[in-house]
C-alpha cells in the first residue's frame, strides 16, 4: 500500500500535501487506488475506457474543434439576435432558444453544427473499439480474465456514451451560461426543458453513430477501413440521400389534375423516405424542439390551417410532435448495438 502511494505521487514531485491530494485525483481511474473496495469488473473496464478516451489526442482534437465551432456559432447568434426578433413573431417570447438556432447566413447555427459534427464525434470515438484490441493483441488476454465476453463491448459503449454525455451537457450548459451573461434574460423553465431535451436528443444521435462505428470495428480488422465505412455512411446520409430521394420523387410527381389526396400522398411519401435518414430525424426533432412555432412536420391542408392563430406550442406538444423521430433514432441506435453485439459474441477470439 505504501509502495503504491509513493508510486502515485512520484511524478507529481515535491508538491505540498494539499495540492498533491488534489492532483492525485487526476492520476488515473479509481481502480489504481489501493483502497479496500472491490470494484465490479464492468466498472473497472468503464473507468479504464473513459480514462483512455479522455487522455487520447483524438478526443482533445475533437473537443477543440467542437468548442471552436460552438463559440463561433454562439458569437454570430448573439450578434444577430436583435434582428432575428420580428414583431408579431410567435416565437418572440422564446428569445433564449434563438441562441441555438439563429445564424447570419454565413456561419451555421449551433444546432446545424451539432448535426454536422455529432456523427464525426460518434464515429471517431468508436471506430477502433474492438479491432484495436485485436491488433494490439490484448483482446484474448482480457477475455481470459473472469469476465463475461459482452462486458468488454458494453463497457466500451457505456464509457464512450458517458464521455459524449458529459461533453454535450457541459457544452449546452456553457452556452446557456454565456447567453445568460450577454442577453441578460434568464431562460423560462419551458425553454430550459427544451434545451435539456435538445441535448439528450443530440446524445442519442451521436450514440447512433457511435454504435454504427462500433459495429464496423467488430467486423473490420483494419481501423482505417472501419473509420472510412462510418464516414461513407455519414456522407451518404448527409449529402447524397436527399438528392437520391429527390431524383426518385421527380419521376412520381402528380400531374396537373391530381386530386388533393394524391398530392398529400406524394408529399407524405417523400417525407417518409427522407425520414429513413438519421440526420433528417435529428434535424426534424431538434428544430421542432427549439422552434416552438413549428406545428407540424408534414403537409397541412387548408382546412387544418384556416382559423388557427399562429402561436407557439407548449413543450409537451412539441415533444409529442417529434416523438416518432426520437423513437426512430433510439431504435436505430439499438439495432446497431444489437448487430455489433451479435457479431462480437460470435467472433473467434484469436490472439492474432
Amino acid at each position, binding site marked *: 500500500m505504501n509502495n503504491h502511494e509513493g*508510486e502515485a505521487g512520484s511524478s507529481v514531485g515535491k508538491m505540498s500535501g494539499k495540492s498533491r491530494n488534489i492532483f492525485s485525483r487526476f492520476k488515473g481511474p479509481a481502480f489504481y487506488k*489501493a*483502497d479496500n473496495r472491490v470494484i465490479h469488473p464492468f466498472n*473497472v473496464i468503464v473507468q479504464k475506457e473513459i480514462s483512455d478516451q479522455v487522455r487520447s489526442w483524438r478526443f482533445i482534437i475533437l473537443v477543440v474543434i467542437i468548442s471552436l465551432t460552438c463559440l463561433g456559432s454562439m458569437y454570430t447568434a448573439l450578434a444577430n439576435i436583435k434582428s432575428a426578433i420580428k414583431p408579431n413573431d410567435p416565437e418572440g417570447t422564446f428569445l433564449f432558444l434563438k441562441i441555438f438556432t439563429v445564424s447570419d447566413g454565413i456561419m451555421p447555427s449551433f444546432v446545424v453544427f451539432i448535426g454536422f459534427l455529432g456523427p464525426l464525434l460518434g464515429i471517431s470515438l468508436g471506430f477502433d473499439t474492438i479491432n484495436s484490441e485485436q491488433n*494490439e493483441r490484448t483482446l484474448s488476454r482480457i477475455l481470459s*480474465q473472469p*469476465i463475461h465476453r459482452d462486458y468488454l463491448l458494453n463497457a466500451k459503449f457505456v464509457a464512450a456514451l458517458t464521455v459524449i454525455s458529459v461533453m454535450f451537457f457541459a457544452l449546452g450548459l456553457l452556452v446557456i451560461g454565456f447567453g445568460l451573461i450577454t442577453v441578460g434574460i434568464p431562460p423560462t423553465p419551458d425553454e430550459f426543458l427544451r434545451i435539456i431535451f435538445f441535448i439528450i436528443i443530440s446524445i442519442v444521435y451521436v450514440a447512433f453513430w457511435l454504435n454504427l462505428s462500433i459495429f464496423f470495428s467488430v467486423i473490420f480488422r483494419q481501423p482505417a477501413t472501419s473509420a472510412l465505412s462510418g464516414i461513407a455512411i455519414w456522407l451518404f446520409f448527409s449529402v447524397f440521400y436527399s438528392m437520391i430521394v429527390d431524383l426518385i420523387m421527380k419521376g412520381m410527381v402528380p400531374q396537373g389534375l391530381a386530386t388533393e389526396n394524391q398530392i398529400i400522398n406524394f408529399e407524405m411519401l417523400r417525407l417518409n423516405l427522407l425520414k429513413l435518414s438519421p440526420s433528417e430525424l435529428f434535424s426534424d426533432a431538434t428544430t421542432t424542439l427549439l422552434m416552438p412555432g413549428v406545428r407540424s412536420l408534414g403537409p397541412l391542408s387548408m382546412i387544418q390551417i384556416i382559423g388557427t392563430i399562429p402561436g407557439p406550442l407548449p413543450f409537451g406538444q412539441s415533444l409529442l410532435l417529434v416523438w416518432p423521430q426520437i423513437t426512430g433514432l433510439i431504435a436505430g441506435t439499438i439495432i446497431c448495438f444489437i448487430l455489433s453485439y451479435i457479431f462480437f459474441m460470435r467472433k473467434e477470439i484469436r*490472439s492474432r
Partner: protein
Amino acid sequence: MGENIIELVNLTKKYGDFTAVDALNLSVKKGEVFGLLGPNGAGKSTTILMLLGLTEPTSGSVRVCDINPVTNPIEVKKRVGYLPEDVGFYYQMTGWENLMFTARLNSLTGSESAARVDSLLERVGLQDARNKKTGQYSRGMLQRLGLAEVLIKNPEVIILDEPTLGIDPTGVVELLQLIVRLSKEGEITVLFSSHHLHQVQEVCDRVGIFVGGKLIAEGNLQELSQKLFTGSPFVIEAGVLFDNINYDNKSPEEWLFEILKKIDGIIAVKPCSNGFNIECLRDATTEIARAIVESGAGLNYLNKKEYGLDEIYYRYFEGGKNHE
C-alpha cells in the same frame, strides 16, 4: 497428485469442412508440467481456446478443474491463467497499471491488488520497469509481464501458448526456469504449447504430440520413444573399420547384417553419417560388439541411441506425411 485437472474426451472442433481438432483425448494431472508439441496449425491454440471457453467445441467434452468451460466459463477463467501467443498490453499504460487493471478485473480489492502486483513484478524481475509504458518494453519483458499477469489470480492451472516465441536464447532459459520454479513452488499445473523441441524437453514432465488436429502420442520422453518406435525400439550406432575385409561383392551394410543376423532380435542395419545404425528389438550391445570383433573388422565405437524429441518429431512428421 494423481487427480486429473484437465480432461478432454473426444474433443472435436470443425471450421466448416476443416477439422482443426479431431477427437482429442487428453488428461493432465495436477501439478504436472505438460507440453503440447506440434507444428504451426496443428490445433494447439484451438485446443487451448476451448479449454478456456473462448471457443465452443463442435463435439466432445472438456473439463477443467472439474468445471465445464462451455457452460461455466467464468469459473474456469477464475482458476486458469492464460498467456496468449504473442501477448500484448495497453501500450499507453505502464506495466504496473496494466497489471493493476487485470487484478481489478479479478475482483481483488485495491490494496490486495497493489500488494500482489508489486510482489509479482519483483518476482519476474520487472520492478525497475514498473513505471515505464509497456509500449517501450522489449519482447522478453512483455513476456515476463504476461507471466506476472497470469499469476495475479493465483491460478491452479496456467496455460502458456508459445511463451518463448521471439525471445533471445538467454531470455528463453530464464523464462523456462521461471516457469518451472513457479509450478514447483505453487503446485501449479502448467500446460505449455510450443514447436521448440528442446524447450519442451527441458521443462515438461509429459509431452503430447499434435499433428493435424490429432494427438499422436503422449507420455514422458521414454514412453514416447517406445510408443513411436514400436518397430525398432533400440537403435545402436556403430563405427566399424573395414580394413582387410573381403565384402564378397556386398555393400558394407549387407556384409555387417550377414555377420549380425545370428544374434537374436536384430532387424536391420542402415548406413548413417558416421557409421551404421543397427536396429534391434532388445538391447544387444554386448553381442554386437563381440560379433564385430570376431569377424575381424575393427570396432571404433558403439553407441546406444537415446531418442531426443528431435528424432521423435521428425519421425512423426515423416509419418504424418506418409499417411496423407
